[in-house]
């Protein structure tokens, strides 16, 4: 057993770090304060082929696994851009998975190539205001008509919908009450984000201002049959396979962000002299930072363990959930500790850690909350009664 990155994985790490290193603190501070999408960063990553890391080679991707994607996102999040950098790319890596598995060759050519090239962006519309985490209770409905569907409904939190050309949409095609199983009767679409039929309203939020999240109001949008992924009624099941990779990636992004915060805090603690010595000489400053390092390091390897299982085709639900849980906490704890370490300067934008801290809250909540992760582990690992 060798628990280490292999040569290819180190090449991924170095390759990504080189690009990320060209975008400095000022760039990310500006993106945040101007609430502006990091186009240049997205473009640079697209040009160097990184947006296709998990896509099949036949479509211009690199055909690598979730492990490599996770290593990539760790580097992306730790270069100063935190969750803003990660979220600008994130959906590209796992979002199109149902298309790779269930799409027709024609759909793959039509949709995936522009996505890999960075010519198009996609938003992922699953969450709804009246369903929340209970996804099978979504109300957005796609009514069959000749040649396609008429869609009405609302989506909540849809990220990058301000920028996106396409919408990956989950909608009911059979009411929940008429389905044998509640996970049935939902269909997945990949369709142009037609702004004459979809109103996209930006949600003001705590952090990651650079990458927008939105409320969507869909009013009689027509989706042609050729924009449906796979079979009608199976959409939610198609999504299942990408849930674990998504959790793993969020976990690694949280770790990357935490490492960046920790690096900044340690550098500051070494330089800042109060009472005649560097503050980092005080154990009250030093120990919490050392502790955060230990947590980040364990979370990192837990994420890679889950990724490895996934890439081996083995079940990884428990590991992916656990990895997301502890990674998000480790990232958050490190970022908060970084703010506290810098004292007053931790609160100043110039030192970046307040921005990282605001963003570190996010992976604790998305794509699934801590409560639901613990419910999953309670039910599926500990064999306790289902609680939701």
């Amino acid at each position, binding site marked *: 057993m060798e628990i280490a990155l292999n040569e290819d994985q180190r090449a*991924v790490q170095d*390759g990504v770090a080189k690009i990320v290193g060209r975008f400095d603190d000022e760039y990310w501070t500006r993106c945040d304060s101007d609430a502006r999408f990091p186009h240049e960063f997205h473009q640079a990553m697209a040009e*160097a082929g990184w947006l296709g890391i998990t896509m099949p080679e036949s479509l211009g991707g690199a055909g690598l696994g979730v492990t490599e994607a996770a290593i990539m996102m760790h580097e992306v999040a730790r270069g100063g851009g935190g969750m803003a950098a990660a979220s600008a790319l994130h959906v590209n890596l796992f979002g199109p998975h149902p298309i790779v598995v269930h799409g027709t060759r024609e759909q793959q050519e039509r949709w995936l190539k522009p996505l890999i090239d960075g010519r198009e962006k996609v938003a992922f519309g699953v969450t709804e205001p009246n369903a929340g985490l209970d996804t099978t209770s979504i109300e957005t409905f796609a009514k069959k008509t000749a040649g396609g569907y008429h869609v009405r409904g609302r989506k909540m939190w849809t990220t990058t919908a301000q920028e996106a050309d396409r919408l990956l949409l989950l909608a009911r095609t059979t009411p929940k009450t008429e389905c044998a199983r509640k996970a049935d009767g939902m269909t997945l679409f990949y369709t142009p984000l037609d702004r004459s039929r979809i109103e996209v309203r930006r949600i003001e939020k705590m952090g990651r201002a650079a990458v927008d999240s939105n409320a969507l109001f869909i009013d009689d949008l027509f989706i042609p049959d050729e924009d449906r992924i796979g079979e009608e009624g199976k959409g939610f099941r198609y999504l299942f396979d990408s849930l674990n990779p998504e959790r793993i990636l969020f976990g690694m992004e949280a770790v990357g962000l935490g490492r960046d915060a920790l690096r900044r805090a340690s550098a500051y603690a070494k330089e800042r002299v109060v009472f005649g010595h560097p503050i980092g000489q005080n154990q009250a400053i030093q120990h919490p930072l050392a502790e955060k390092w230990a947590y980040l390091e364990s979370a990192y390897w837990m994420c890679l363990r889950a990724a490895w299982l996934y890439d081996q085709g083995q079940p990884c639900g428990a590991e992916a959930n656990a990895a997301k849980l502890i990674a998000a906490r480790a990232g958050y704890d490190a970022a908060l500790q970084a703010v506290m370490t810098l004292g007053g300067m931790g609160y100043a934008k110039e030192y970046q850690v307040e921005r990282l801290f605001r963003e570190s809250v996010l992976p604790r909540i998305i794509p699934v909350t801590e409560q639901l992760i613990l419910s999953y582990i309670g039910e599926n690992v500990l064999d306790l009664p289902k609680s939701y």
Partner: protein
Amino acid sequence: MKVLVAVKRVVDYNVKVRVKADGSGVETTNVKFSMNPFDEIAVEEAVRLKEAGKAQEIVVVSIGPAQAQETLRAALAMGADRAILIQTDEAVEPLAVAKLIAAIAKREEIGLAILGKQAIDDDSNQTGQMLAALLGWPQGTFASKLALEEGRAVVTREIDGGLETVSLALPAVVTTDLRLNTPRYASLPNIMKAKKKPLETTFAVDLDVDIAPRLVTLKVEEPPKRKAGVKVADAATLVDKLKNEAKVI
């Protein structure tokens, strides 16, 4: 024309170098290594020559441990065509390196050799010059600009107080300075392609080169800690201190 580029695996420039407790060298376990930055510039320059149709093939050479394969792969990912690793776990001095590269340059009938002006680990700044001497080729060191003309390399060099331009008859040796170019980053598709490019491993004995060290390292130690500066009350005190304490004016 074939271009040879020499690349060295060195401790990454972001790593804070620590001296081993026994003073025998610097700590290299659990330390990040990467390609010597000046060599990255050399690879970039060669790739640009190839893209401009002035070079047909780029051969990268590294001398070092098995892990130096990674450094060679990084060069292949940037656009070099094939790689040669002269594998050794011994510390090799500039003269040994120059002899090994010279052997390869002859074997491969190289038209131009591009090297970094120095490696950021030992900062010797000797290999390129020694290589030129061993081969009897002209040299253009510290290049900030390189142009190939009919059978000649025109090299702009950064020297004290300005720029000097030399015209060298090919084959020649060029060493790179920081301002020659900005190396590209390897794209993911090229990183993947690099895995399939040929990488030959050979040894000093196969090339019939003696790499026995001529120097003995007695001791490696940390540079002395810089003492804190002093603040002076006014210009008069400063002048007084410069005159009487530092004795520099």
